[in-house]
């Protein structure tokens, strides 16, 4: 029995979920109408909505979203594949594990953001620095989950592979990867999620494009509606990415339980 937030609620329950958002909206609108805060600090919800639409229409938003997504993709590709390869290596070979495991654990103690000034010193504030930073964020969940999955492949499977004389590539693709798949997929999901988080960090360090750039500009020009619009966009995209990844996970792992049962 899985215990998750947002279990399938019926209609009445879904309506209950609307109470807080509506309350916040009402409070927000009320604060604006009562002029509790200056217009510079809090714009009415409707203005925010119009700003988002406006940014969409002008194409600013779309192009910046593309840049950001591109960065996340490249960063994930770099960090995720490095994590995957090292994770498989560590999972298969005790020597590699002993050599790299402690080092990775030590490096992991450093908050990812602390690396950014160093990366900037090395590469300057350019595209590569941002992608490299995102890659660091993507690296850790990938390496740990891949390692966990690969090192957890049952001994029986290894024996079977020896009997069938599966070697190198076939051994990996037929035995190791399929068996470690649930862990690897979890790694991918967490890895992309963190890439999205660190994208925002990378862009706040200074950039001339991307969703983060929109927010920096908005802050500098004191356009709070643009800053809030950026926040809404980042949150919405994060939500969409997470939902898609969960669906992807479910899709890839469908029928897993019966498969495992059959093999055991």
């Amino acid at each position, binding site marked *: 029995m899985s215990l998750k937030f947002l279990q399938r609620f019926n209609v009445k329950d879904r309506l209950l979920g609307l109470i807080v958002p509506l309350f916040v909206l009402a409070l927000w609108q009320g604060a604006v109408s009562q002029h509790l805060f200056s217009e510079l600090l809090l714009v009415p919800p409707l203005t925010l909505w119009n700003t988002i639409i406006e940014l969409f229409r002008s194409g600013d938003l779309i192009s910046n979203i593309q840049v950001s997504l591109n960065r996340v993709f490249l960063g994930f590709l770099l960090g995720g594949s490095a994590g995957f390869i090292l994770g498989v290596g560590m999972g298969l070979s005790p020597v590699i594990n002993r050599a790299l495991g402690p080092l990775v654990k030590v490096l992991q103690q450093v908050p990812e953001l602390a690396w950014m000034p160093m990366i900037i010193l090395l590469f300057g504030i350019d595209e590569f620095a941002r992608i490299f930073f995102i890659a660091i964020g993507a690296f850790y969940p990938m390496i740990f989950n891949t390692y966990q999955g690969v090192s957890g492949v049952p001994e029986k499977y290894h024996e079977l592979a020896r009997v069938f004389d599966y070697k190198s590539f076939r051994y990996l693709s037929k035995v190791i990867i399929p068996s470690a798949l649930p862990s690897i997929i979890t790694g991918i999901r967490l890895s992309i999620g963190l890439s999205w988080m660190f994208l925002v960090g990378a862009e706040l360090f200074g950039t001339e494009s991307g969703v983060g750039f929109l927010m920096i500009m908005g802050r500098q020009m*004191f356009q709070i509606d643009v800053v809030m619009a950026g926040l809404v966009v980042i949150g919405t995209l*994060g939500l969409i990415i997470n939902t898609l990844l969960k669906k992807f996970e479910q899709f890839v792992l469908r029928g897993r339980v019966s498969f495992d049962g059959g093999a055991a």
Partner: protein
Amino acid sequence: MTISNKTKAFLGSSIVPLLLVIVWQYVASSGYVASFILPSPNQIIKTFVTNFVEKEYALHIAASLKRVLIGFLIGTVSGFSFGLLMGLSRTAEKIFGPFFNVIRQVPIIGFIPLIIMWFGVTELPRIIIITVAAFYPVTLNTFAGIRNVPKEYFELSSVYGYKGLKLIRRIVIPAALPSITTGITLALGMSWAMLMAAELFIQTYFGIGTRIQLGRDKFNMALVIVGIITVGALGFFMTTIVEQLAKALDRGKIIRKET
């Protein structure tokens, strides 16, 4: 078998770092790379020592620790209460859960430009960021822990006539404790990570992040690396302490259950 397995494992794991340091020292002292890009390990140790001899560095560390502690405490207490509320009442879960889950999707760092505009470049936005970072994992794990309390416990407690506060204190919290402590450990890690965001993006005079930023501005890589090591080591110590405390708490609980 003169060398025990443990020593062997230790030797094995120290080969790569040792090699790295040797290659590093060699490259740095060969002069191929400018020292502000790649300071030698020797230089870093020197910077480390001078930094720690200075009284100022202690002030930076103290400022960071204080920030994290405040944010972590507020976030943990509020997260625990919120998780407890949602865990105990399905209605509360239905009311707050969806909103909480949507807000949670926004990367915390994304809030920084907004809260700077609201509160200015002051201590408050820094604390808020750290608090939020601690709040999420504690809420989620408290909630999950309570929902995973076996039904039999509740049945038993109704036999004993436990109700209200007594039920929460005697049954719910002890049963959910492992999950709650996991949440608190995660929260500390998250607060520590977001401390860096708070100090790097919201300029401040004191903090380890400030020191790292200073190293970057002065093109002093040794300073940057010393800062990184400080952050990593402190984070490690704090997490270890909290983990040990959590273990001790859980162990105490098991013993009480047996007697």
